[in-house]
């Protein structure tokens, strides 16, 4: 067997890996067992190898690839149309990647490729590595879209720079014709190892991001717990204060009763009861997270001149994580409170949280001072913190869309309305 054939067959698994990654991107559900799936991919590899060793016509490769990719796609759940479409998409991407590599090599006029014994070897090697790297980037990108982790743009930039930088250096390093077959193989193996190491390190970096994100969630949850504890403490202090004053209260009530003002006595007694029960809490739905956030955020305007209207009817727990509820509800309330505080007269804020057919619905209406700027479809306020305000809405949208929900915004001259609907039953 020639060197070319050896390299072709050794790097063939890279191509299979690329197809595997693409399938992970396009399909969500595997309908066969892991073993069947693995066998399918082995079959694909064998099929390509078979064509290579026997017919070796470009036409044969095209057919083998299309059939092979389709056969493998049968392992996943989707409509037939989608499978067929994906076969062509995957093949097209692979085809483009290959073409770019060949053109790139020609463009950079790496002299040795014109008349070297190694050109096909390098070609197939580089093509395969580029193929699997592109597939990997697709895969990571698609995965990232599904999660809430916001990978900064320079993360992807760094990847592209590193991978293509290494590729370029590798090509430069083999300028000399005088390399032996052994040296060549060594260089190729080194090249593949370096790329693999890069991708491995990337995985570690990604997990670091994920851990950092998890810590932020825990931090948020702790804050929510702290808030609720604060409210409980307040309640306890209230009770202590009342116990302390209860003698005076009772004397007052008795004297009112003795003076034949029973109604006053009744009112007085009711006020004392209210204070004890903490009926002054704004949100008492029984849902720990929602009560916590609503009470914390709205307590500041409860005693102001804002006309507050709150109605919350929700189950005690839902399949939405605390962090996400905090992001959505917290941001909505922050925006509403800021806007309401800016209004001069007729300050109103209304919050309605309800549940409908497995969906959590949050409605926030507030009066505002009428100066809204819509910038690229992102809402921005008149204040200096324009940037922050715009981000708030984006965060809400991203969180809500994670569950397949939606955020709607509407406004007239006086009232600003935000409606969020979040499916919470999986």
């Amino acid at each position: 067997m020639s060197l070319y054939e050896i390299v072709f067959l050794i790097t063939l698994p890279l191509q299979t890996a690329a197809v595997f990654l693409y399938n992970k991107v396009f399909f969500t559900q595997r309908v066969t067992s892991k073993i069947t799936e693995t066998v399918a991919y082995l079959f694909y590899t064998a099929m390509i190898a078979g064509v290579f060793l026997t017919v070796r016509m470009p036409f044969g490769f095209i057919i083998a690839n299309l059939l092979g990719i389709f056969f493998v796609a049968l392992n996943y759940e989707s409509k037939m149309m989608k499978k067929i479409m994906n076969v062509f998409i995957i093949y097209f991407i692979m085809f483009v990647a290959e073409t770019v590599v060949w053109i790139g090599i020609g463009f950079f006029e790496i002299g040795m490729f014109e008349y070297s014994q190694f050109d096909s070897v390098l070609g197939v090697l580089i093509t395969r590595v580029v193929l699997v790297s592109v597939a990997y980037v697709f895969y990571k990108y698609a995965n990232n879209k599904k999660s809430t982790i916001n990978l900064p743009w320079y993360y992807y930039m760094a990847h592209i720079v590193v991978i293509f930088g290494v590729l370029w250096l590798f090509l430069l390093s083999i300028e000399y014709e005088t390399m032996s077959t052994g040296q060549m193989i060594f260089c190729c193996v080194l090249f593949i190892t370096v790329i693999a190491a890069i991708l491995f390190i990337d995985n570690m970096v990604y997990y670091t991001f994920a851990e950092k994100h998890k810590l932020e969630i825990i931090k948020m949850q702790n804050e929510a717990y702290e808030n609720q504890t604060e409210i409980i403490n307040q309640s306890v202090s209230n009770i202590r204060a009342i116990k302390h004053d209860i003698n005076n209260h009772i004397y007052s009530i008795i004297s009112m009763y003795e003076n034949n003002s029973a109604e006053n006595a009744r009112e007085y007694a009711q006020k004392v009861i209210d204070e004890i029960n903490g009926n002054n809490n704004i949100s008492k739905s029984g849902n720990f997270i929602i009560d916590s956030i609503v009470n914390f955020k709205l307590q500041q305007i409860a005693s102001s001149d804002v006309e507050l209207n709150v109605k919350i009817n929700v189950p005690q727990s839902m399949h939405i994580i605390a962090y996400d509820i905090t992001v959505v509800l917290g941001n909505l309330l922050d925006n509403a409170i800021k806007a309401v505080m800016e209004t001069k007269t007729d300050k109103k804020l209304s919050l309605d949280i309800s549940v409908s057919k497995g969906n959590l619905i949050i409605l926030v209406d507030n009066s505002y001072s009428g100066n809204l700027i819509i910038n690229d479809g992102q809402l921005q306020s008149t204040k200096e913190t324009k940037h922050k305000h715009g981000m708030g809405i984006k965060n809400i949208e991203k969180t809500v869309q994670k569950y397949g929900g939606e955020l709607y915004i509407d406004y007239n001259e006086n009232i600003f309305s935000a409606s969020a609907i979040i499916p919470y039953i999986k």
Partner: protein
Amino acid sequence: MLNIAICNDDKYICSEIENIIIEYAKETKTAIETEVFYSGEELYGYMQKDSRIDLIFMDIELGSTTGIAVSQYIRNMLDNHTVKIVFITSKDGYERELFDVQPFNFIKKTVTKQSVSKCLDLLVKLIDKNKEVFEYSINRTVFKEDIKNIMYFENNLRKVKIVTKNGTNYFNSTLAQVKEKLPDYFLEPHGSFIVNYDYIRQIGENELVMVNGQKIEISRRYKKNIREYQIKKAREQRNVII
């Protein structure tokens, strides 16, 4: 004629609500008939024989059977998904099962005229007396179906399939023609379906689940409409429109 049921073991609250309803009927010139039940068993027994009730004011903390249990019976045993249930409660915090019976609204004790009237207003809006029966014909025979019993319509080749609580049938028509004869609360989650909102148990991201477990896909085109309808309903329920 609206049929309202009040189910509460507290006789005082029962008469309070009844009085508010009578006042409401007078003020709005609506014909309302009220039935009072002091226990869940009584209500359930009545509904087994008579299913004309449109709305129930149900106390959650009922005597021996809780309001939730009675509601579950009505929904699951009697297979009645169209009667509206308004829960009256003094507690805060509801168990998850409570939301499975698709409550129409919640009223806190003490009951006020405003909270009861709000529910009646919403009910009146919902019930379109002109569209209570759906007629269709197969080979010159006319069939009538109570809209209350219709779960959904589906496009089936060239015919329309009508699925009710009692069975299925096929007739010649288009979904567009059918939609015109239906009240607002029949929604389209998909080009081939028109679904009765009351018979939807759950609306998920890409599909909805009917009360009998059947799943119907929500196509991307119609997702927005369904969402907006849910929000519209939620907005209507609010105590205050500011």
